[in-house]
């Protein structure tokens, strides 16, 4: 800010705008720095007074407890750090699967709400209004309790062909064990994906140049699905299945999906899908009907109109609020602790209770959820900038 020369003589030093703004800002900075230093120093002193070592060294100690579901090798002899990672992976598992399911279900219901068919439209409305307005924690309890109550004990499992068993211990299914030859199939899949990428790019360019349409979608489907299947069969079906067997109290072997996971996953996806469906509906409605009419007038059929005109414009409205729903779902997954699903907060809580390192663990919690959220939102921002209206 500049001042008129000469005005300085009339305003006193303390009333001078530059002095004021610099003074206030300086004061604020000093206050904040002092506060941070005070809090840090005090925390360290208080922790020392309670014989707690500040820092992260405790993470290398033996955990001593077991965890219900671990995606990486874990036993009671593992370290606290490993226990944290197990919890984090469990959170990521439920969050990623939840986001995928909620997105698919949300888009489906959002489109259903726009249907001209009364039954479809009102059942979608009923779903949205009910699910959106009942607290998530309650829904989680409902799923957990009904899942447990409705299912039989392991000995009387609902079974399908001695391969799939459903009981109150979860869903047991055969576990595929791949032989080394299966690597060929993986290679075929990789080749298929890379080829698809280049073919779609080439097809788009050619269409822009000549106007000829290449059936890129069918070709991609063939490359990604059919090619690996052919290679898989040709290499002699290199897979065995380990079947779950009832032994003593529980099933041994096979792949188990625990009821805690099922309840959390269902509750999170169904709850978030209701919000996503409203976002999708808003996005589609935001595209003026004139766009459809214009597309039809240009001779585009209904499918391409939707795919090339309506959805790209709707996506611009949909993506930003969709990103916050993804963040919500990830953070809501921490309610898992209420139904005993060993997520990041759950394992952290157990560690906190054993080590007494409350400050450090709460900081780890906050840091991890903050990083997860920032990662998700930077991905969604990138996606958003890709989908943005390109102005020429």
């Amino acid at each position: 800010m500049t001042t008129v020369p000469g005005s300085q003589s009339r305003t006193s030093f303390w009333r001078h705008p530059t002095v004021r703004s610099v003074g206030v800002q300086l004061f604020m900075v000093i206050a904040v720095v002092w506060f941070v230093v005070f809090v840090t120093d005090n925390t360290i002193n208080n922790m020392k007074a309670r014989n707690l070592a500040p820092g992260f060294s405790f993470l290398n100690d033996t955990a001593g407890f077991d965890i219900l579901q671990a995606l990486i090798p874990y036993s009671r002899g593992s370290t606290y750090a490993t226990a944290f990672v197990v919890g984090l992976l469990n959170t990521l598992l439920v969050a990623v699967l939840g986001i995928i399911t909620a997105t698919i279900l949300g888009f489906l219901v959002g489109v259903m709400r726009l249907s001209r068919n009364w039954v479809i439209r009102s059942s979608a409305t009923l779903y949205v209004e009910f699910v959106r307005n009942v607290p998530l924690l309650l829904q989680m309890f409902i799923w957990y309790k009904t899942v447990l109550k409705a299912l039989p004990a392991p000995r009387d499992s609902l079974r399908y062909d001695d391969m799939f068993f459903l009981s109150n211990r979860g869903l047991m299914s055969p576990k595929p064990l791949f032989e080394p030859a299966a690597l060929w199939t993986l290679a075929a899949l990789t080749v298929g994906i890379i080829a698809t990428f280049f073919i779609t790019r080439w097809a788009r360019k050619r269409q822009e140049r000549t106007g000829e349409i290449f059936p890129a979608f069918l070709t991609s489907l063939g490359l990604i699905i059919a090619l690996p299947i052919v290679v898989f069969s040709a290499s002699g079906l290199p897979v065995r299945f380990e079947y779950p067997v009832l032994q003593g109290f529980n099933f041994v072997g096979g792949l188990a999906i625990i009821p805690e996971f099922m309840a959390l996953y269902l509750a999170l996806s169904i709850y978030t899908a209701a919000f996503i469906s409203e976002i999708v509906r808003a996005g589609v409605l935001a595209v003026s009907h004139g766009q459809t009419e214009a597309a039809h007038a240009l001779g585009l059929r209904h499918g391409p109109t939707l795919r090339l005109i309506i959805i790209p414009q709707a996506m611009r409205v949909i993506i930003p609020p969709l990103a916050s729903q993804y963040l919500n779902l990830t953070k809501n997954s921490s309610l898992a602790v209420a139904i005993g699903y060993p997520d990041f907060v759950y394992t952290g809580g157990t560690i906190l209770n054993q080590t007494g390192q409350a400050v450090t663990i709460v900081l780890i919690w906050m840091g991890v959820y903050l990083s997860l959220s920032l990662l998700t939102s930077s991905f969604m921002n990138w996606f958003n900038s890709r989908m943005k209206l390109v102005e020429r």
Partner: protein
Amino acid sequence: MKLKLLSAVIGTALTMGVAGASAATLDDVKARGTLKCGVSQGLIGFSNPDEQNNWTGLDVDFCRAVAAAIFGDGKKVEFVPLDATQRFEALKSGEVDVLSRNTTWTMSRDTTGGMTFAGVTYYDGQGFMVKKSLGVDSALKLNGASVCTQTGTTTELNLADYFRANNMTYQVVAFQKNEEVLAAYNEGRCDVYTTDQSGLYAERLKLPDVENHVVLPEIISKEPLGPVVRQNDTQWFNLVRWTYYALLTAEELGVTQANSAEQLASSTNPEVARLLGKEGDFGKGLGVENDWVMKILAATGNYGEIFDRNVGEATKLGIKRGVNSLWKSGGLQYAPPIR
């Protein structure tokens, strides 16, 4: 839970100086006029509220005894129900003055937890409960079982040790609240329910079909349960510890709720005279009135009376004194002399 934890963390960060939370607790309690006592959220025989929020139990009576020693009135207690994961932070942040919540005394809790155990009001051990229909009669036959327990407890750790030591596999399903553990066990999520054996007997009473569940004979750990206070407040620690010893000494000398006034007036035993404050200034040393034991006995009776009333053989729990008998009767309960 989050809120309490967060407030505890903020407490750690903001408390002025080292002495903040551990300053003279006794003065704080006296100034406040009530004792804040951390108890369980409902465990029959130890700390359990009824419909009118009247608390009963062994842990509860211990708090009443401490309150009686300070105020001469066992009713001046505010009970704060805490789950297993909240309890230590609640104590350390000063939310409660004493934690009397079937809590196991371990070395790490004493040395690194910022707290001190004042005594063992109940010697317990971890056990297992199963449905009779499973036909299991020993914990060593539990290979492959699903086990329900409470998270953040020593139980969870002993469980891991026991199955590891006996080369058995198991699946642990752990919840934060006791009711959730019991509900999951009742609904068949687990084959086994494990906690301290006294707790098993208490929780079994809450099941709709008590007779179909059996507590296995094995005890797999030492679980000395007792009151906990913050570290670095010796005066308060002494008061809580000697309240416990006074309860034991009273039982040892045969002084009860009913006969304490008579004993004070007529007993010729110098030990009784010292206990009840007729001789010496023992109460003064603790920072309370000299007749503190008289007031404790008026409020709760001696240790034996507390035990019999809450968990003893005449109650629904029907627990024998066993290792919790006085040393004279072959048990572990022993108090240093008052002199």
